[in-house]
């Protein structure tokens, strides 16, 4: 059953790479974050340049123009993400998963003006909700998308107290779940581990604290750790 929104990108080498497109909620948050930064930049420029008289007002307007149109472009082509996107772990890539460059970034940000129509990003929002990859108009035209940039995954090596003799046949999906449980156990509280282990009790026939180490033993067996 597919309950996530991951997409598979097939590479030239014939393997699928998985990416997770970012939804409208987190992208809105990132946008607001960027908006605040932009406001701060403009406000700082305004304060600094307000001493420069009328010429200063002109320069402030140039700053406003540059910040409005090129703030995202500059960050996307140098870092792949604006500060707002970075804080929410998002990044902009092309449809084939490669980092965005000038052409794509310029187009997707230029077409913000179309996304904004008729007011407050209504068109862009509707477009994102209807799109399977959460793309707004600019993303469609630039051939880009916003995906989660996952933190580097640390392979976790789970530990267990004592090896137990296990002789249970599990189907493939259950095997995977049990291994995942063991590998994630470091990030779960003991109570949560207990809850999860209890779900398995009809199969393992063990309850209580024993169940956790029992499951880990099964996992250790499955991955070939002795």
């Amino acid at each position: 059953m597919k309950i996530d929104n991951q997409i598979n990108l097939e590479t030239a080498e014939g393997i699928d790479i998985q990416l997770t497109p970012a939804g409208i909620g987190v992208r809105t948050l990132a946008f607001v974050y960027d908006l605040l930064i932009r406001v701060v930049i403009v406000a700082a420029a305004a304060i600094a340049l307000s001493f420069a008289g009328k010429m200063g007002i002109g320069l402030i307007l140039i700053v406003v123009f540059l910040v409005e149109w090129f703030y995202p472009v500059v960050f996307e082509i140098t870092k792949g993400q604006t500060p707002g996107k970075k804080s929410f772990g998002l990044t902009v890539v092309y449809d084939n998963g490669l980092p965005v460059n000038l052409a794509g970034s310029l187009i997707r940000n230029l077409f913000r003006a179309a996304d904004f129509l008729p007011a407050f990003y209504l068109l862009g929002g509707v477009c994102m909700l209807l799109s399977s990859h959460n793309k707004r108009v600019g993303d469609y035209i630039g051939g880009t998308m916003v995906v989660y940039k996952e933190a580097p995954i640390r392979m976790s090596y789970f530990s267990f107290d004592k090896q137990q003799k296990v002789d249970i046949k599990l189907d493939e999906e259950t095997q995977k779940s049990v291994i995942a449980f063991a590998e994630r156990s470091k990030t779960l509280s003991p109570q949560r581990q207990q809850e999860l282990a209890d779900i398995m009790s009809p199969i393992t026939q063990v309850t209580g604290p024993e169940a956790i180490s029992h499951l880990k033993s099964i996992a250790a067996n499955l991955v070939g750790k002795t």
Partner: protein
Amino acid sequence: MKQHDFIQMRQKSWDVFAEAVKEPHKLHEYDIDLPHAFRQLTHDLAVAKSRLYSPALISRLNDLLLQGQQCLYKPGNRIWAPFWQFVKYDFPAHLLLIRPYVIWAHILFYGFALITFTATMIEPDFVRNVMPNAQVTQLEQMYDPASRIDENTGNFRNERDSDSDFLMFGFYIKNNISIAFQCFVGGFLLGFGTLYYLLFNAIFFGAVSAHIVNVGFSSTFFSFVITHGSFELTAIVLSAAAGGVVGMHVIRPGALSRAAALKRAGKITFPIIFGAFLMLVVAAFIEAFWSSSTTLPNAVKYTVGAICWVWILIYIFPRGSRDTKVLP
């Protein structure tokens, strides 16, 4: 082979790979055949998936692969060459592709402008059908040659200071781009939106020009608009032509589904919109820093303006065969 043994066997080369792709620009410092290592990694991932190894292992390999792919196939980040390529080839090629729309947009825009121009010349009060009285008065003030000589009339002095040039630059960009986008996006409403905005602006433009002539301020007005008008009006007309393409694809998708037709229309028109955007930026520059200057004699302005018009018309009607397809 169990997962644990598999990891032990391959761990070392994964670590080397992860280290190498972390800093793509320092790749030469590592003794690694990246394409080979990458293919090996894809193989590892395929093995891990088929043997149902744990999700953590698979997602780590997936992550490594993604980094590797981005490192191997990263598109170049050149800035000027693509721009030049676009201005010299892509934009004219797409203009050629939609030439009938470009011609029709010109006919509609200047046709209706001419009609209201003539109407206003014959019946000066016609301008009040187009815009309210207050705006008419404001307009007259703006182009009144007298207001430029009088130091005390406020906004428009002999020479506008360069700081307000900057101010107007920001204003023009915003205003023009929103008009151009309205013309384009109107195409999605079966093209009626495009028609509405194009004709609205044409009627407005025609009536205003004629009114200025009627009140006798034509020299300040035409010397002001002629140069940047070449870029600005053409950009807006081209946006409308692009909107027309979109509208026509919605009305008459042909053998395609409407969604596919729209996608196709988007592919054809986005270089037009991008080109129009560039033209509007140029226009805003000219408008703010050249057109507004009062120290330049009008003869110079008219000459430069005429050259701009001739150049832009040659540019947007490139020679070539429309049978040469730019799209696959």
